[in-house]
């Protein structure tokens, strides 16, 4: 009798889990349809890769040679509130009429020691980084 009760309870729980999964499928519809055209992805540009490698390895010397003062200020703003970069990740790049956008995600710690994530984009033109967003 007890075994039957236990099996019935487990079966009911399993049915519940299945119901929850089905309910989630109906309620979570994913992103809405994009009515605009999407551009195809391209490979990571070398110049942008070098800049992000310098950020990831905390190499201020190399970074100072690759970006001018305006771009360094923009990069500082883009990385806020992260002060201690732990990881950098290339997430994708797209191109439109010779203008290339190379996107990165950086994880690290804030001044308060909180784990944070920020995204920034390097603008590349003629194999050179020309801007930071």
């Amino acid at each position, binding site marked *: 009798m007890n075994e039957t009760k236990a099996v*019935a*309870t487990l079966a*009911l*729980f*399993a*049915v*519940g*889990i*299945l*119901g*929850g*999964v*089905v*309910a*989630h*499928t109906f309620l*979570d*519809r*994913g*992103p*809405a349809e*994009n*009515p*605009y*055209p*999407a*551009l195809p*992805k391209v490979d990571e540009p070398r110049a942008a890769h070098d800049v992000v490698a310098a950020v990831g390895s905390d190499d201020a010397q190399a970074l100072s040679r690759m970006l001018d003062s305006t771009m360094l200020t923009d990069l500082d703003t*883009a990385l806020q509130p992260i002060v201690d970069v732990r990881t950098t*990740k290339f*997430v*994708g*790049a*797209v191109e*439109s*009429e010779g*203008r290339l*956008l190379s*996107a990165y*995600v950086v*994880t690290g710690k804030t001044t308060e020691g909180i*784990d*944070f*994530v*920020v*995204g*920034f*984009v390097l*603008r590349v033109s003629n194999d050179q980084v020309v801007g930071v*967003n």
Partner: protein
Amino acid sequence: MVGLRRLIAGSAGTLLVGLFAGFVLASAVGVFIQDSGLFGASGESPIARAYMLGLLQRDPNSIVGIRPNQSIAQRAAELQNADSSRTTASIQPLSLTYIGGASVGIYSVHIYAVGLRTAQGVDQFFPLALTVYGGKVQRSE
């Protein structure tokens, strides 16, 4: 009679707990699949997409629930700007591309590339990085 009532109540409780567990499990698996890009998932957040569409369609009302609270004056000014830009057709969206994103704990970042044509006929191509947490776009730059 009391035994039957207890049986029904117990069964309903087990079923409800199962439903809740299944929902949470499916949600967690969904987030993992989206973030990891498994099974062709882009990792794009529905909130980030809705925000971008509201922005490009100059419809502040559609994104009011998914961005930080603003004062009544800020919201009124935004509606004014949206109305005037719609009537003058000052910008025409050309493309919207989700480049990629990542999550750390409750924070997630989603990066888009936007193509626009201004009223002067100049094509602009710029990125926008959205930081999402707590079900809202908290940062857009």
